[in-house]
């Protein structure tokens, strides 16, 4: 009785190549700017003494994206996305039949914002009402193939850099305000973060309704990209 030796040279080569491919994917995940941004944001959020859930969500997104990048080779990901694209285009066609600015959708969004704004911030009803669309949005983005939509026009590098400068400046200004507070966990009116500036607005029902409407609208707009 002879058994195939699992450590024959071809088998060893295959394993070695497989190991190298996985190491490359791990390295690729570490270099993905989106994952890096989420790791940094989550780390600073936890350091700032913010609620644990905020930092945990950011780090969970980074972990999930990293896991996805390592688990599936790029070629396999592309194949899956192409396979899903046909199904997605049919869904898109059906989706286009429902006008995104239809009065019913707008009415639904306004009713949602007015109702949820009636809840106290960070209460259980407010938490459930905000987590539901947030989780649904992320689930849709996770499931949706990236090749499904129309191909956007190339973006000039200089223009992309200009936009990046604006967002990086905003992040650094916010970080500077945070570091100039008496302590990371103590709000400062002298050096307000965006959260501190928004607190008076979000203290009123109207303010919460407007911000929730804008949040919902921007999420809907982003999902249609």
């Amino acid at each position, binding site marked *: 009785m002879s058994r195939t030796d699992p450590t024959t040279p071809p088998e060893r080569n295959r394993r070695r190549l497989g190991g190298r491919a996985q190491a490359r994917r791990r390295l690729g995940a570490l270099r993905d700017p989106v994952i890096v941004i989420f790791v940094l944001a989550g780390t600073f959020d936890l350091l700032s003494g913010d609620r644990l859930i905020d930092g945990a969500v950011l780090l969970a997104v980074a972990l999930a994206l990293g896991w996805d990048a390592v688990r599936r080779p790029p070629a396999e990901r592309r194949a899956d996305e192409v396979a899903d694209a046909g199904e997605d285009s049919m869904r898109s066609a059906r989706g286009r039949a429902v006008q995104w600015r239809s009065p019913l959708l707008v009415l639904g969004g306004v009713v949602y914002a007015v109702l949820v704004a009636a809840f106290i911030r960070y209460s259980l009803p407010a938490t459930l009402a905000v987590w539901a669309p*947030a989780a649904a949005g*992320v689930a849709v983005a996770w499931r949706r193939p990236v090749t499904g939509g129309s191909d956007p026009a190339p973006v000039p590098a200089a223009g992309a850099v200009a936009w990046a400068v604006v967002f990086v400046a905003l992040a650094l200004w916010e970080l500077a305000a945070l570091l100039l507070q008496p302590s990371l966990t103590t709000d400062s009116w002298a050096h307000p973060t965006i959260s501190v500036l928004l607190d008076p607005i979000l203290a009123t029902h109207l303010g919460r309704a407007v911000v929730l409407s804008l949040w919902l609208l921007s999420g809907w707009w982003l999902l249609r*990209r």
Partner: protein
Amino acid sequence: MSSHDLTVAGYVLIVLAGVCLQLLSAREGSPIPPLGAVLSRVMRTRSGQVGVIAGWAWIGIHFFAR
């Protein structure tokens, strides 16, 4: 000008810079793309697509949910 005013002025300036870029993008032959085009480009990758939507979701959770 107090520290508060200076900090707020910084935020306003940054937002105005974004508004200016968006307005410049509307000009014919402008090298500045509209924000929507940049986001569409970013969302052409899986991590970009999930990242942008997760960022949006996080804003809602941060301000309203626990």
